[in-house]
């Protein structure tokens, strides 16, 4: 029995309607708006979850985002939500929650055998145990995943609604306690644009039960009045239920706002979470402090909680956490809390490690024992008795709650995220801000200032200074706090006994013994100990446990706290729902999708779409009941025997103008450009500075000083960026201007033996005969009445014309060309068919055969590398490795038995040693069925491949379980002399 109960009329929600909720199949009644944790405590549910490693029972230990143990899964119609801290979800009618990490239930968990076996699970257990044999790793992984882990990944897509927003402000105030409210008020009155964010549904929660008054008002009433005043300002935005999750450089801040917890009513568009991306000039950090737990044996049992949480449930929700409460105090704040708990009717015992202190608890009816500590607990499903060690010796005392006051840890997370350095204050035994951070200032408890009056004064002067920094004049009026005092004291540390059952990190089951062991094994840096033991690596990020961890490590190393220091604080301060990061964007909205000008016509023609980089492109056009392969075969054969039409708008296009363009082209391409005549084009090969193939394409000379460069579709952006960098940083003397025009043009290519006849019907202003318009020629004129640039270039290996027209006339051109090709029954073809055509020709593709490690020699383009001039990457081609004969080189691959199909994604291995580790000779980069040749063909990169044609290897695809004998051949399968494209 917990002895917990509701105190009628107490708390902020007195009068709120009752609601029904369900925990682990048990139906309970709670109060709308209270936290699930409060409702669970009030209903006597002590065991809320099981722990990560040992499956020990876990109850509620905190009251907010610091909660390490009470993790539940909330069942929702939009998909279950795991790892929800019961302390942060607001109760709504019909809420259904389950405890986590237990089977079959948190009350009776069979996997709790881990706890009995815990001597077998020391720090680094997983690293040490599951090493050999390697073949058993998949088994180990399944086993570990079943036993360990937090919650369960939902099996259905999340259907909740999320949103995000950008905003700007002069001043962000993080935290709506006394200091934050005061700072916001000063800034608001000065006319600054202020955003005040607090993670709770109320401001000033820390002032509940405060004995001091502010400007004559009870402290929390003052907070309420300030909140009301702030709401009147047009220049102030108040954000409750909003965590400041991350601070980044130059005033960039991420806020996560909870808009509702209840599932949406049908048709309600209100999102659940909103992500704020803020840019602010100044940030006032008033995030308060978190009470530190105490280290003693079995300090993880349900019923052990921080004193501030224990009294917080009373002050906020009117829930008395237990009937018999043991307060393990080390400062006067704990006595204030004990007094309130006693007045509410609990039987309270205070053990205080100090010699003397506040009498307030004693006067409220609590029994107080000085120079005494809590050292151990007992109780199967929660604390029933506590062991006390005092001047009178040891004894067990009945209690259902142990409220611990270890001292306070300023919440330095936001301060430190951008590089602020916490320092150890030995007098007060806490980490406080050390260096000052640019654009940010800490005030109040998070700055180590616990006296209410002093905190208000600090907030006032900080706000005035911050306003001055943004050229606003603020009045420095600070409210008067009476009867305020520094209640935080220096805290206390337990003398730890039974280090094995003494938990530092409640969520990850890290004990003092684990930290001792890690230090013993040679881990010294706190960052290393953290990763080895998983200290502070849970969803709570060690908000409660980390400072205790530093203390334990300092003791184990025999050094001062300051020598150990803290781990690096990184955003986010609280776990962000994945959904709020994606926000309202559906999967197809995560990057812009580019469509060519003829998109609608392709769609109408029944094309199958393919996501090709940033573009949506027709893969092929299906007719009737054709299979994919049948459609592609038809399209390929039409190009080989007749004529086809393909949309090539996606190719990058850069206009180049200027008298030095030939010099420029000579520098950026490996081959020579000095002899290029007006009206002709040339294929160019572009390298990176390290000699690796970067891009290729045809540049056409349209006029004496006017060129248009064609790049690969995927390289269009990167090539333009690289060329402008060269011109802007290195070659400023070159008179060359670039203009990226990919989107300004629509381009279609006619390809096939009948292409000339089709073009002849619509060409105006230029001749199409072979003599008048030779291969690699470029003409400017009209096609079907549309101003056009026509290039006679070929990727398919057939006679081919690429027709470029202004993008807004793309549909018109596409329709006119199909009309002109009616006598030939010309049909469009897609990217897949283009791939087969180029493969038959043996053309390499950037990203396939040229794959980021490939140089020109590897793909048989040594003849493109000029020896007469300099070009980008030339020096690197002189590296000895670049001409190593064992490099992976481009070869053709055909099945030894032509009726056999090649496996996709195959490695090529030696037939005599197919399974030899490291025995791969190379791999298939592209493969396809060639309808022209009637068998499979492939291009492959093979070690020393150029000298190995005629060799027989095995194409081995272990995942598909296929091995096929193949022959290495020259990479040109079709028309190797190129007669078809130039005739």
């Amino acid at each position: 029995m917990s002895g917990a109960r509701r105190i009628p009329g107490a708390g902020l929600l007195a009068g709120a309607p009752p609601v029904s909720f369900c925990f682990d199949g048990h139906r309970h009644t709670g109060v709308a708006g209270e936290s699930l944790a409060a409702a669970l405590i009030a209903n006597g549910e002590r065991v809320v979850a099981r722990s990560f490693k040992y499956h020990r029972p876990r109850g509620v230990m905190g009251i907010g985002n610091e909660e390490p143990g009470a993790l539940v899964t909330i069942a929702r119609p939009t998909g279950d939500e795991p790892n929800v801290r019961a302390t942060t979800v607001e109760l709504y009618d019909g809420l259904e929650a389950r405890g986590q990490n237990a089977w079959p239930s948190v009350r009776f968990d069979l996997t709790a055998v881990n706890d009995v076996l815990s001597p077998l699970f020391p720090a680094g257990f997983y690293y040490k145990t599951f090493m050999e044999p390697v073949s058993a790793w998949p088994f180990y992984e399944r086993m570990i995943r079943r036993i360990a882990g937090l919650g369960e990944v939902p099996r259905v897509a999340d259907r909740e609604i999320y949103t995000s927003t950008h905003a700007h402000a002069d001043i962000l105030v993080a935290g709506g306690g006394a200091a934050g409210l005061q700072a916001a008020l000063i800034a608001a009155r000065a006319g600054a644009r202020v955003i005040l964010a607090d993670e709770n549904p109320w401001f000033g929660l820390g002032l509940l039960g405060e004995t001091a008054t502010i400007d004559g008002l009870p402290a929390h009433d003052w907070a309420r009045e300030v909140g009301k005043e702030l709401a009147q300002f047009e220049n102030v935005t108040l954000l409750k239920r909003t965590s400041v999750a991350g601070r980044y450089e130059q005033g960039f801040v991420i806020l996560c706002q909870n808009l509702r917890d209840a599932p949406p009513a049908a048709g309600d568009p209100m999102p659940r979470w909103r992500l704020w991306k803020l840019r602010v000039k100044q940030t006032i950090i008033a995030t308060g402090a978190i009470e530190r737990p105490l280290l003693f044996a079995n300090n993880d049992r349900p019923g052990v909680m921080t004193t501030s949480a224990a009294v917080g449930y009373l002050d906020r929700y009117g829930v008395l956490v237990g009937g018999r409460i043991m307060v393990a105090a080390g400062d006067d704040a704990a006595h204030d809390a004990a007094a309130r708990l006693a007045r509410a009717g609990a039987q309270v015992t205070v053990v205080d490690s100090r010699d003397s202190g506040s009498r307030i608890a004693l006067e409220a009816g609590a029994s107080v024992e000085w120079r005494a500590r809590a050292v151990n607990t007992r109780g199967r499903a929660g604390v029933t008795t506590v062991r006390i060690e005092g001047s009178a010796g040891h004894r067990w005392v009945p209690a259902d709650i142990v409220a611990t006051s270890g001292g306070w840890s300023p919440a330095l997370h936001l301060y430190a995220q951008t590089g602020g350095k916490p320092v150890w204050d030995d007098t007060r035994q806490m980490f406080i801000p050390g260096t000052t951070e640019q654009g940010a200032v800490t005030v109040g408890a998070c700055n180590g200032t616990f006296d209410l009056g002093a905190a208000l004064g600090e907030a006032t002067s900080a706000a005035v200074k911050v306003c001055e920094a943004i050229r606003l004049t603020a009045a420095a009026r600070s409210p008067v706090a009476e009867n305020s005092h520094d209640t935080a004291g220096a805290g206390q540390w337990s003398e730890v006994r039974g280090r094995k059952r003494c938990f530092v990190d409640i969520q990850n089951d890290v004990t003092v013994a684990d930290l001792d062991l890690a230090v013993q094994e040679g881990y010294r840096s706190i960052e290393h100990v953290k990763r080895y033991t998983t200290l502070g690596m849970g969803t709570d990020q060690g908000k409660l446990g980390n400072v205790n961890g530093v203390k334990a490590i300092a003791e184990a190393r025999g050094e001062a706290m300051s020598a150990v220091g803290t781990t690096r604080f990184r955003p986010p301060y609280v776990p962000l729902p994945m959904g709020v990061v994606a926000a309202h964007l559906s999967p197809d909205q995560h990057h812009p999708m580019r469509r060519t000008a003829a998109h609608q016509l392709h769609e109408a023609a029944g094309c199958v779409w393919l996501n090709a980089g940033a573009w949506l492109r027709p893969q092929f056009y299906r007719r009737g009941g054709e299979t994919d392969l049948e459609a592609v075969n038809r399209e390929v054969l039409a190009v080989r025997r007749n004529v086809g039409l393909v949309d090539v708008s996606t190719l990058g296009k850069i206009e180049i103008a200027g008298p030095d363009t030939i010099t420029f082209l000579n520098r950026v391409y490996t081959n020579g450009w000095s002899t290029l005549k007006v009206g002709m084009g040339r294929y160019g090969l572009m390298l990176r500075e390290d000699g690796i193939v970067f891009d290729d394409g045809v540049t056409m000379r349209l006029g004496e000083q006017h060129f248009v460069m064609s790049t690969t579709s995927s390289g269009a952006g990167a090539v333009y960026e690289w060329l402008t960098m060269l011109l802007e940083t290195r070659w400023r003397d070159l008179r060359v201007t670039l203009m990226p025009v990919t989107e300004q043009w629509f381009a279609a290519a006619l390809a096939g033996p009948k292409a000339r006849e089709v073009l002849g019907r619509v060409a105006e202003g230029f001749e199409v005969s072979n003599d008048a318009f030779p291969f690699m020629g470029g003409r400017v004129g009209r096609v079907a009445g549309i101003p056009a640039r026509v290039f006679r270039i070929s990727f398919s290996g057939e006679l081919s014309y690429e027709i470029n027209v202004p993008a807004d006339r793309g549909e018109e051109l596409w329709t006119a060309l199909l009309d002109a090709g009616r006598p030939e029954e010309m049909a469009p073809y897609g990217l897949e068919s283009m791939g087969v055509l180029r493969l038959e020709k043996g053309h390499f593709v950037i990203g396939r055969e040229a794959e980021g490690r490939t140089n020109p020699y590897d793909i048989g383009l040594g003849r493109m590398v000029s020896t007469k001039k300099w070009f980008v990457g030339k020096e690197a081609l002189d590296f000895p490795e670049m001409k190593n004969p064992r490099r992976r080189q481009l070869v053709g691959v055909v099945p030894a038995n032509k009726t056999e199909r090649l496996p996709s994604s195959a490695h090529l291995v030696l037939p005599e040693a197919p399974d030899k580790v490291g025995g791969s000779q190379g791999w298939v980069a592209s493969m396809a069925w060639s309808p022209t040749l009637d068998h499979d063909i492939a291009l492959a990169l093979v070690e020393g491949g150029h000298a190995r044609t005629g060799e027989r290897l095995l194409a081995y695809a272990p995942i598909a379980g296929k091995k096929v004998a193949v022959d290495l051949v020259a990479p040109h399968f079709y028309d190797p002399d190129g007669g078809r494209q130039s005739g």
Partner: protein
Amino acid sequence: MLLISCPFCGERPEDEFGFGGDASVRHQGGGDGTEPASVEQYADYLYLRDNPKGRHAEYWVHRYGCRRWLVAERDTVTHEIFSVKSASEGGTG
């Protein structure tokens, strides 16, 4: 996220920009082949970079803006940006 003041477009968030590396690195080979570099010099140029703590001149390209190259002087520890100018006026690469 950095806030970069593009001399052509004004203050813009970092995600509009692309990073272009150390702007103080001088191309071995003169940048146009006029000063032949040894294999060792060129390999150093390609692969070795300092990782300075503090002020650092670096290239950024305003990829989703004016598409111009810029030289920003940034503190690698605090991320403070001291100056941003057009690359055609600064940088020695």
